[in-house]
Structure formats: structure tokens, C-alpha cells
């Protein structure tokens, strides 16, 4: 029986991966994990709950909120730090939105979970834009290194796959559309307010993905976006 583990945040990338794997791979069982790590808001996790329905064998939300107590330098885990705006941080080596070593921790848990399930694959949601936004743990080099590390395991060889790692946001949104992703049930914004802010790096790359596909993002934004100006139309 072929099994895999997918960490799903409820954001755009992990949701596209879930739908892509469900539609285009031949796993008998998909097991999904979400992480409550004391992040700034829980909107993503709520979206994850909506997304996994009917697609996975199991779904668990793992509480590791000690992270927010220990890792106080990130705007994502420390509400006293403002989320950095894209225009201020592009090209920054490591913005305040970076959560220290988060992907290593998540992937370690997923890999351990995969071992215990007898799964041979863990999916990782990193995309091309992650390297560009300064996330070292979203790079191809990181993926290669962590797979090398996992290969030391003498019995259960777990492979971490990142099908989006070389894809632009434009390509990811296109893949999501092709896979029938319900984008209304995804949440990308770092801030977690009623509407997406449209100005944090996560919103900026998401918006660009939709605009370059000439599609209207169905999420509501607190900034005014003139979709007509970019010849965008609704996703049918």
C-alpha cells in the first residue's frame, strides 16, 4: 500500500500540493498534518480543515505552540513584531517574517510520522518564491540536504518531495486551477485580519500569481485591486 504524508497549512501552496497529489499521484492513502505552532492567527488551519475533506485518509492538527514561546524573533510567532511589508524587505537576507528553522522542525515531525505509518513520501510545499523571499529552508539546497540527512535511515527511506520548488507563483496558481482548487478556502496573508492585507510578501506573491494568470483571486483584500486593469476574470 502506497502512502504519503502532506503537511498542510491551509495556504495556497500546500493546498495546491494536496489537490495535485490527490489528482495526479497514485497514493492509496494520503495522511495530512497541520501545525498549531502558536502562529499569529488560526485562519490557515481552518482552511486546511476545509481542504482535506474527502481527499485524505487521516488529518491531524499537531500542537507545538511552544515554538511561539521560544522563537520570539519572528513576526509570525510574536504579535509584538509587525509583519514586514513586501516593499520594505525584498532582497532582505532574512526578514522578520522568517520563523527560525520552522521547515526543518515540521519536516522532521512529518518524516517521523511517515515512518510510523509506513509511508515512503513526505511532500514539502516550498516554491521558487520562497528562496526569493529569503527563506533558506525553502530552497533546493535545503531539500537536497534534508533528503541526504534522511537517507542515513537504515530501514525506512523517506523521500521528501517538493513538486512546487521550481515553480513560479503563476505556475502554481495555474496548477491549482487545473486541479480544481477552491481558492476561497485558502488563506495566505501573514496578518490574519478579516481581509487579506495585500501588502505582505505572502499576499504579494499570491496576487502576482493570479494577476499573471489573468484570474481574479476570490479572496477579499483590504487594499483596492483593480482587476480590470490587469484583464483578470473570475475563475470558472
Amino acid at each position: 500500500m502506497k502512502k504519503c504524508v502532506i503537511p498542510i497549512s491551509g495556504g495556497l501552496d500546500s493546498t495546491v500540493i494536496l489537490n495535485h497529489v490527490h489528482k495526479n499521484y497514485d497514493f492509496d492513502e494520503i495522511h495530512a498534518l497541520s501545525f498549531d505552532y502558536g502562529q499569529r492567527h488560526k485562519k490557515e488551519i481552518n482552511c486546511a480543515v476545509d481542504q482535506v475533506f474527502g481527499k485524505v485518509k487521516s488529518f491531524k492538527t499537531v500542537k507545538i505552540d511552544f515554538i511561539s514561546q521560544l522563537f520570539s524573533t519572528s513576526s509570525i510567532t510574536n504579535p509584538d513584531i509587525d509583519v514586514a511589508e513586501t516593499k520594505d524587505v525584498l532582497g532582505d537576507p532574512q526578514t522578520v517574517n522568517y520563523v527560525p528553522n520552522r521547515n526543518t522542525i515540521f519536516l522532521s515531525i512529518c518524516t517521523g510520522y511517515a515512518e510510523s505509518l509506513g509511508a515512503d513520501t513526505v511532500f514539502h510545499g516550498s516554491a521558487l518564491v520562497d528562496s526569493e523571499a529569503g527563506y533558506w529552508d525553502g530552497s533546493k539546497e535545503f531539500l537536497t540536504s534534508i533528503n541526504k540527512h534522511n537517507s542515513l535511515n537504515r530501514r525506512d527511506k523517506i523521500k521528501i518531495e517538493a513538486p512546487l520548488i521550481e515553480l513560479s507563483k503563476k505556475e502554481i496558481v495555474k496548477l491549482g486551477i487545473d486541479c480544481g482548487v477552491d481558492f476561497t478556502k485558502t488563506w495566505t496573508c501573514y496578518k490574519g485580519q478579516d481581509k487579506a492585507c495585500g501588502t505582505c510578501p505572502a499576499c504579494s506573491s499570491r496576487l502576482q500569481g493570479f494577476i499573471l494568470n489573468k484570474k481574479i483571486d476570490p479572496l477579499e483584500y483590504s487594499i483596492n485591486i483593480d482587476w480590470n486593469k490587469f484583464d483578470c476574470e473570475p475563475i470558472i
Partner: protein
Amino acid sequence: MCGIFGSNNFSKYTSLYEINKQRGTFAFGCLAVREDDQDMYIVKRPGNIDLEHLPSHVENNYDVYLGHTQAPTSNAREYDVQTSHPFEYKEWLVAHNGIINNYEKIVKQHVPKHKNPVDSSVLPVLFDKYQKSGMAAYESIMETMNQLKGLAAIWAYNKLENKLFLCRMGSTLHYDGENTFSSLKLPGTELMDDNTLYEFNFKNSKITEIDKLSTQSEFFIIE
């Protein structure tokens, strides 16, 4: 990823350096250029530098002062002049803030003998390659930048044509509409157009747009 900045005014340049230090304290690089005789003053140093300690002839004797503050990259943890900005190759001097995601592919495809762990180092080599093939300096930059995947804000000085260029492709770059630019936003400055090549015109000390790149940024930015 680091910070770049420049001005025709040394006093402004000093302020810009102070502000852009927060983008990288690993190393500092400076290039000053005088247009008429093409005299150049270049400094590369690890860590920070006190600009007051520069030789007295530097202040106010050049037409433009350019800077780069460097953060350590994953491929260059120890300071080495060979892996620090500005990168010089033949007729070109270049400083870059950003990341070239297809660096290895570009090197393999175009300049397989190029050996340097820092991605930015390939820029002047490619500029030179295209200029040698008959392209104008600005065309060489356009040709190179259009092949890059990643983020870039650069200043590039070409000795052959005695021209200074700025290019923004994703990374932030702000300017005051005249002759001062910076990775970090300063009061009175605005974001320069994305995917655009500019020239710093020595004659009137103004930054003017030259051409648009064909690349697309991964980010949609509203100021």
C-alpha cells in the same frame, strides 16, 4: 542579499551608508567614479567602515559614489575580496542585491570556466561576454538580466562606455527622482519601476529610465 545605494553627493552617500548597514554588516564595498578622466576609487572591506577615514581626496572629488553592504551568503561565510562586491571583470564593475536562482545553469550554459561561489560574480562576466559580441553596454545588461531567475537590484559601471546603470528586477530600489538611490526607502524617495533598466547620467546627474526587461517579478507590490 544585501543593500545597494549611491549618490552624486558624498554627504548624502554617508547617510545612505549608515541606513543601509542594516542590510548587511558582513562587508562593505565602495566605488567612486569621476566622469571626465574616468578616475575610480574602489574600496572593499570586511565588516563596517568609517567613511571619515577614507583619504581626504575622495570626498567631493568624484561625480558619483556607489555603495554595497553585504550580508554573508550561504556560499561565502568567510570574508574574501574575491567574493565581495563590487565584482570587477574586465570593463565592468557591478554590485548586486538579490539572488540568482539559476546561477549554476547560467554558468554552465554561458561561462563554464567561471569559478566563484557567489552568484553575483557572474554578472560582469556575462555583461562582458555580450558587450564583446557587439552589443552596447545597456543591451548587454538587458540580455543578461532577461535570462536571470531571481531577484536583483544592481549598479553596474562600464569603463568602455563610461556609463553607469541601475537595474531593478524584484529587489527593492528607491530613488529621489534625481541622483540618489537606495535599497532601503528614505523620506522623499519612491520605489523605482520594477523590471526596468536606468542610466545614471553624469552630465546632468539624473537617473533616467532606458528600457523594460521582459522578466516578471514574483511579487505584486502596491506602495
